[in-house]
């Protein structure tokens, strides 16, 4: 069977850097808590005139530009986002147009913060049908425009950004996406959500502006991530017949340094083998794994032949992991 290899990656972080001290809607006492509670010291915010597809486009160009891959040769675009340009059409469709990827189909997926691992598995599966030679997978999030600026439980922790990966079919069987595990617990779908704006609560039924903003039950999410993160990584490695010691780097969703520390401790793996950039970018939802993957490659933390685990957990509730040989 063909394998699916990641031939290039890219990322885009908006220029606007927002340190914790700039969040003046909260007291200085509260600002100092942000870093302690989550490890987030700064985040990026998109410009007023930027929307999610703009971020996705830049990440895509970064990815394709590295290997001079012509956009017109892209066969499919999958875009993961939980902060789309609009409810419809798919944000991916605008990216396809602006990129000039005229041959490509394009659609969105939404598994909130788990979108990266879901998208990698989906792209892998499509390529392995033999019908497509390549797929561009982009994850782009613009949470600064869907958060309640006054809510200390959410606003400080999220940032805007996008990551991209170009996946290609290959005859080599020992490289690429080796295995994926995905899971969902829909009984907890209220734990992380944007209540209003869909058919469950149309705009004319929104009684308070905060109902149009992202919300989450922080303590529940923390416990969920600590439970499912190590479990899905163990499940993935067991299914692939790989030991923890064989994994060069764990690239987990960048939600909270205390979650990453908890996962590392539970697995018995030093935190140093987990890539961390949430201090600089905050939680970029489904974009976090692809942004971190691109950075880890650029910084040579990982390289050709290394085994990498990507893992994520988020709204749904959903969680998953991929085992990748770079």
């Amino acid at each position, binding site marked *: 069977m063909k394998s699916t290899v990641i031939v290039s990656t890219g990322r885009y972080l908006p220029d606007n850097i927002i340190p914790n001290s700039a969040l003046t809607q909260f007291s200085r006492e509260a600002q100092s808590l942000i870093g302690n509670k989550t490890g987030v010291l700064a985040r990026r915010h998109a410009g007023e005139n930027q929307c999610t597809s703009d971020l996705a486009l830049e990440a895509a160009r970064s990815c394709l530009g590295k290997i001079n891959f012509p956009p017109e040769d892209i066969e499919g675009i999958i875009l993961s986002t939980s902060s789309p340009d609009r409810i419809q059409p798919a944000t991916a469709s605008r990216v396809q147009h602006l990129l000039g990827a005229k041959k490509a189909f394009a659609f969105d997926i939404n598994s909130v913060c788990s979108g990266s691992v879901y998208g990698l598995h989906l792209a892998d599966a499509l390529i392995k049908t033999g019908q497509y030679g390549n797929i561009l997978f982009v994850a782009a999030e613009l949470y600064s425009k869907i958060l309640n600026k006054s809510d200390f*439980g959410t606003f400080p922790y999220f940032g805007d950004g996008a990551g991209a990966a170009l996946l290609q079919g290959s005859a080599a069987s020992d490289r690429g996406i080796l295995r994926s595990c995905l899971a969902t617990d829909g009984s907890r779908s209220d734990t992380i959500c944007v209540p209003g704006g869909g058919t469950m609560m149309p705009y004319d039924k929104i009684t308070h502006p905060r109902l149009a903003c992202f919300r989450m039950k922080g303590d529940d999410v923390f416990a969920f991530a600590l439970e499912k993160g190590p479990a899905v990584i163990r499940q993935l490695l067991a299914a692939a017949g790989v030991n923890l010691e064989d994994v060069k780097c764990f690239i987990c969703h960048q939600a909270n340094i205390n979650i990453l520390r908890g996962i590392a401790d539970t697995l018995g793996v030093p935190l140093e083998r987990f890539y961390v950039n949430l201090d600089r970018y905050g939680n970029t939802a489904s974009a976090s794994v692809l942004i971190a993957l691109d950075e880890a490659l650029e910084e040579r933390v990982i390289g050709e032949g290394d085994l990498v685990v990507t893992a994520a957990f988020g709204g749904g509730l959903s969680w998953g992991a991929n085992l990748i040989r770079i």
Partner: protein
Amino acid sequence: MASTLKKLKAGIEDLFPEVGSLIITGETRLGDIPDFDSMAAVNLQSFIEDNFKVAIPLDLLGEDTTLKDIVDFIENPAQQKAA
């Protein structure tokens, strides 16, 4: 006291829509309010600063703090800090 409590109560009902059928009085503890946690305490702190122009430290917004405690602080912040 009465007007401060009324304004504080309105703010809490706005910040915590899940408060629902809970009857909020001066004796209501913050811990009695559904979904009150350390994050919510910061939101309440911001509300108090914006609406009463009083900076209340977070350690005075614990679960056992009552609304009357908060009103007392708002109306006499210097006295409360000295205490």
